[in-house]
């Protein structure tokens, strides 16, 4: 990369030397902008509102991602430790709950952004900068949200897998091998599944096997709760997938984005200027300002 800024400034300064004085005072030397006559409104512009809202959603998604990271870390400990399993499970329940709430909040904000974007489309036109900015932020944030939720799904999957493996290992120690399909059935049956499961165990001794039985009971309960946890989030996943499907993925491509934008038309200002000109030029209005209709009728007669 070649930095050419210094060369540019040099050329500009050399040119400045030969420029007359009176144009210089227009420039504010310190920040290089022209002083403009501008009316400053108290309320923020629609653009500011959209950008602020987008930033908020972005922050929330980042927080969601950090919660997912926490869940993953928790899973690692769950996989490698042999004690405090139910405590770890409680932690992951709490994290999952927070993720779900945050996910629902992000979804609500996204919907609001989507509605605002549609509103802007009607008010300012689909081609206005603020509308396009809103649309782009909306679609990008939806995809980012989906990516975060997919990571969450992967974390849940992992936890479920670890739990299942644990159950199968401990069951085989207790004398019964459980296949994947059998485990599916038992989980689907919930609490009843446990009674079925425990019937088949033949504990050899008393002490250690009782521990093992307790352990496996705990894991079975956790697995059932894990499945229930995922079912709760199913609705959120479905809503998100519908959103992504509606938007399509092609708008993430920059070329498509730029090509589908039409040129900006200064419609309002031009039309008003033209109307004022026509009004001024109308001779009948100048003579008889209170009888504009006569002017139009006479004009039309003249045309014929």
């Amino acid at each position, binding site marked *: 990369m070649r930095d050419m800024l210094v060369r*540019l400034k040099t050329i500009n300064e050399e040119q400045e030397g030969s420029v007359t004085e009176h144009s210089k005072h227009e420039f504010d030397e310190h920040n290089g902008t022209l002083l403009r006559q501008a009316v400053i409104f108290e309320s923020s512009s629609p653009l500011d509102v959209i950008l602020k809202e987008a930033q908020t959603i972005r922050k929330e998604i980042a927080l969601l991602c950090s919660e997912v990271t926490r869940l993953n870390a928790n899973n690692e400990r769950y996989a490698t430790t042999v004690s405090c399993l139910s405590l770890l499970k409680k932690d992951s329940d709490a994290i999952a709950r927070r993720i779900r709430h945050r996910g629902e909040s992000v979804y609500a904000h996204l919907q609001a952004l989507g509605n605002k974007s549609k509103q802007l489309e009607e008010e300012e036109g689909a081609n206005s900068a603020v509308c396009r900015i809103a649309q782009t932020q909306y679609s990008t944030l939806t995809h980012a949200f989906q990516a975060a939720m997919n990571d969450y799904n992967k974390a849940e999957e992992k936890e479920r897998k670890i739990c299942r493996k644990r159950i199968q290992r401990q069951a085989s120690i207790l004398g019964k091998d459980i296949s994947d399909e059998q485990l599916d059935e038992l989980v689907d049956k919930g609490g009843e599944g446990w009674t079925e499961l425990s019937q088949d165990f033949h504990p050899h001794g008393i002490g250690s096997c009782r521990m093992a039985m307790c352990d496996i009971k705990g894991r079975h309960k956790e697995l059932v709760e894990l499945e229930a946890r995922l079912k709760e989030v199913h609705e959120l996943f479905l809503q998100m997938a519908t959103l992504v499907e509606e938007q399509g993925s092609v708008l993430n491509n920059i070329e498509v984005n730029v090509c589908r934008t039409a040129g900006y038309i200064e419609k309002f200002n031009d039309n008003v200027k033209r109307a004022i000109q026509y009004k001024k030029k109308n001779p009948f209005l100048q003579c008889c300002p209170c009888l504009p209709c006569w002017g139009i009728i006479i004009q039309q007669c003249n045309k014929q």
Partner: protein
Amino acid sequence: MAPGGLKAVVGDKILSGVIKSVKKDGEWKVLIVDHMSMRILSSCCKMSDILAEGVTIVEDINKRREPISSLEAIYLITPVEKSVRALIADFKDSTFTYKAAHIFFTDTCPDDLFAEIGKSRVAKVAKTLKEINVAFLPYESQVFSLDDPASLYSFYSSKTNEGRNKMIENLAEQIATLCDTLNEYPAVRYRKGPEENAKLADEVYQRLTAHKADNPKMGEGPDKARSQLLIVDRGFDPISPILHELTLQAMAYDLLDIKQDIYIYQTTGIGNAKEREVLLDEDDDLWVQLRHMHIADVTKKVTELLRTFCESKRMSTDNANIKDLSQMLKKMPQYQKELSMYSTHLHLAEACMKKFKTSLDNVCEVEQDLAMGANAEGEPLKDAMKSIVPVLLNNDIEAYDKIRIILLFIFHKKKGITEENLAKLIQHANIREDSKIITNMQKLGCNIIAGGCNAGKMLPDRKERTESTYQLSRWTPVIKDVMENAIEDKLDRKQWPFISDPAPINTTQTAVSSARFGHWHKNKSPTEYRSGPRLIIFVISGVSHSEMRSAYEVTRATEGKWEVLIGSSHILTPTSFLNDLNGLD
């Protein structure tokens, strides 16, 4: 998996060097591009990438734009008059279109335009001005394009003789920025014959040397002295761009209407049936896996992958097929991305096969026989005319397909055919309006009319290949032979001369040099630093999909020792190639 190779290198350069370099927390910016820079940016970055780094909208510099005076603007443009004028116009009157300007040129800005900017108000509001030296499109991880589909016309039409030298200079500069970006300083070689090959090669060498003066890192590193850049003309292998290819990417672009790499199809998802648009690029892992596969293997592979996927997620479905996917989607919406990918590729493969079965089964067999000079059993072709006549007389076959057969017939004849015979063939095929295409092939240096302007020019000999292939995919692009020879240092120096003597190749390494050892202190991203040598091939006036595939196959065969890159002014499809020939004169 993020795309690797060229796309990663350029994407990283643009994201870090341009967008991140001017990022300020809490502040959003507008990004302004012109046509070429937009294509470059689009091929290696997504909207989500740039939005994550503080850009909130992308505008076309040549369209009338709404002023957004509260935001600063990043201009990523080519240093041409049109774009520079538009830039100056943004800051002309008393109201500025944007708050400030950060300007990035794709390559060197000519002095006169630079002076114009310097004298305008832009110089006051410019906070950044850099030249990034990226003037090419990273189309795939090993394929580049210079985004000039009019290249065939520029090079071979008799009407464009004057501007040709300037065009060759521009081309050379673009190729030089490719080498600059990859930190390569390859030995330049060209195919002896057409004069434009030598001219372009010479120009490229000069530009490379100029770039190396500014960027001494070029060519640095063990083995880099073996890197080569080959310039070859399209007429060298006119068969590959017109043959019907049966690998997924080549077939899809040939038979289906895919524009701007977007495939459109009808499907049901969670909602009702509607049209879905999908971008076929390297962000789609499945596309990367399938694109070079033979179509017969594609459907099998996708179905197998889908079944494995369903089993691993414990989705109960016996026959995972296209219709079932929408059911699965409703049951497990968290796998939308994966299921959409499977759906897209099942549809794509099905669409290709449908088109193939309607008329091309016979045609492909004849084409392969002509191209190979022998039938599937290896017996040399005795009466080529007999095999092509039924195809030419068949009214169900499209004109362009007939032209492709005729051309292959002529190339099979090696010495060309008489004007009489050509007229007869055109009449049989009933393609008089498009017959120009055949004669215009002569402008590429191909032997069409026996005893005509290209008499004596022969198509290159090809290697004997013994790997088993599908019957309708026996042809291997000639460029693959060239790639393999170049890597083994067996490429004939008389037919492929060097512009300057290459550095002597060290066959015995005195010190153990490792790619990793000794370079840890240099801040290089893994994408940029590739230890082995590279073979870069530039085809003048268009590269075909089969040739692109060869680059990947040869690279794989070297087990990572070499990386082969191939590129051209644009990517051809058989239809676009024939259209270009039609418009030559």
